[in-house]
């Protein structure tokens, strides 16, 4: 099988500024101001066609940053990402215009993705049916519940037929029935050889669906492998972390944060 996504030495550096004036000076002057913070550091992995990869990790470990970088929403500071085809990110309420109705949002979003008017007409009814919005489709999106928004977002994204799909916590707001329907759709994608990345705090969903997992810890890969290897280790870590005292937890976080601010060692 051929590789569909190759992530190589990807690093994402943010600057933390104490004052807004530092930010301005940093833009204007060649000298560097502010403190470095590595949200991702030297991430490398490969995905094959038909792979479903789960990203696990505690809050702030860089899961969402990584998914945004893969989707091309955020540019990486260093490293390369090769993607065969079009990547599509589904996150909660991603890119919906609150003022417009659901139907208008479908057309808007599809337009931006480069579909023609005729193609959009054909997709529209499928999208509405899958999202189960029925008569609410002609109501403004601002009146939608978070579940409705994420259903619409998910439905649009899967029907635009991307080659690589990145699902960032988007299923955690839907009910069980909808989540199952999405999993069915994703299994269909899998059989068609599409690569998917799956981010969720629900380890149950992760086990049910993913084959491989990447465990991120404070911007670095802690472990990578098949789901059966990574998840037990991750659960073990979670249990240990839960048992730590408040002080130990704080020390653990401080140490990690300090590591994330250290400059990169050149190889």
């Amino acid at each position, binding site marked *: 099988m051929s590789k569909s996504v190759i992530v190589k030495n990807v690093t994402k550096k943010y600057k933390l500024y104490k004052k807004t004036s530092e930010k301005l000076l940093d833009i204007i002057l060649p000298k560097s101001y502010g403190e470095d913070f590595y949200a991702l550091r030297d991430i490398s992995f490969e995905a094959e066609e038909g792979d479903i990869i789960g990203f696990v990790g505690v809050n702030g470990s860089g899961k969402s940053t990584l998914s945004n970088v893969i989707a*091309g*929403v955020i540019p990486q500071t260093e490293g390369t990402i090769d993607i065969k085809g079009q990547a599509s990110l589904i996150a909660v309420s991603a890119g*919906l215009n609150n003022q417009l109705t659901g139907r208008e949002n479908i*057309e808007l979003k599809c337009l*931006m993705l480069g579909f023609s008017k005729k193609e959009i007409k054909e997709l529209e009814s499928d999208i509405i049916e899958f999202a189960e919005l029925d008569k609410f489709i002609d109501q403004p999106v601002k009146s939608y519940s978070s579940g409705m928004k994420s259903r619409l977002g998910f439905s649009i994204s899967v029907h635009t037929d991307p080659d690589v799909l990145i699902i960032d916590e988007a299923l955690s707001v839907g009910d069980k029935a909808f989540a199952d329907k999405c999993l069915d759709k994703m299994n269909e994608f899998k059989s068609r050889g599409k690569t998917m990345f799956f981010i969720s705090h629900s380890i149950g969903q992760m086990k049910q669906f993913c084959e491989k997992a990447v465990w991120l810890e404070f911007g670095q890969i802690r472990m990578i492998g098949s789901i059966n290897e990574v998840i037990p280790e991750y659960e073990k870590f979670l249990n240990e972390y839960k048992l730590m005292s408040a002080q130990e937890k704080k020390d653990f976080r401080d140490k990690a944060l300090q590591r994330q601010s250290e400059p990169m060692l050149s190889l």
Partner: protein
Amino acid sequence: MSSMYKVIKEQIESFYLIRRLSLYELKSANNNNYLGMLWEILNPGIQITIFWFVFGFGIRGGRDVDGVPFFQWMLAGIIVWFFVNPSISQGSKSIYSRIKMISKMSFPMSVIPTYVIFSKLYPHLVLTIISIIILHFTGFPISIYLIQIPYFLFGTVALLLAISLITSTLSTIVRDMQQIVQAILRVMIYLLPVLWVTFSLPEWVQSVMKINPIFYLVEGYRHALLGQGWYITADIPYTFYFWGVVLVLFWIGSALHVKFRKHFIDFL
């Protein structure tokens, strides 16, 4: 130079997108009002009435401007302002307020200010047509000079695009830029021959005011709508100056835009 070419190419390739998106823009701005898009016309109408009352009736005491009644004189110039003002102010915040929505890097980002400006173009066209009709029945019949309108319309859009490329990039990086733009726009109308007559000023002051390229557009529209002559050829050096300014601004704007657009999302 290459970034200028790139931006122009993106505009041409995405022309269909610009047209569709600008309609959605117009729609989402007016969806909450019962009168909807009618406000795009009502709002300027209210302002014109008040300005006529204050400047024409109050300050000028109803005197005409070189034989042209004040109302018609003002109307022929102010419609440019009703296009320029919202276009610049919306255009300069167009990128940072929409970047979240456009979560794709493959989307040509230079199109964002363009479609925002285009969404202001439709009300402007309607307003221009209404003005032509009003003027036709109030002593300024439709004349051959009206064929200058498409030229000045094109000039206005070109200038607005160039300005918005600069301001939208700068205000994404430094949010204070938006405040600066608003502050300038608020007083700009008084520096244009829109509400008061500038002929009485010393020659050199008038020349200084002409540095502002919008001056050219206002006078151009007025000559066309009132049938006062061919403004394009009346002052040829000024026409060249105007296009020179547009070109330089567009060059700066596209260079800035292309340089920073990859990092727009980081500045949020």
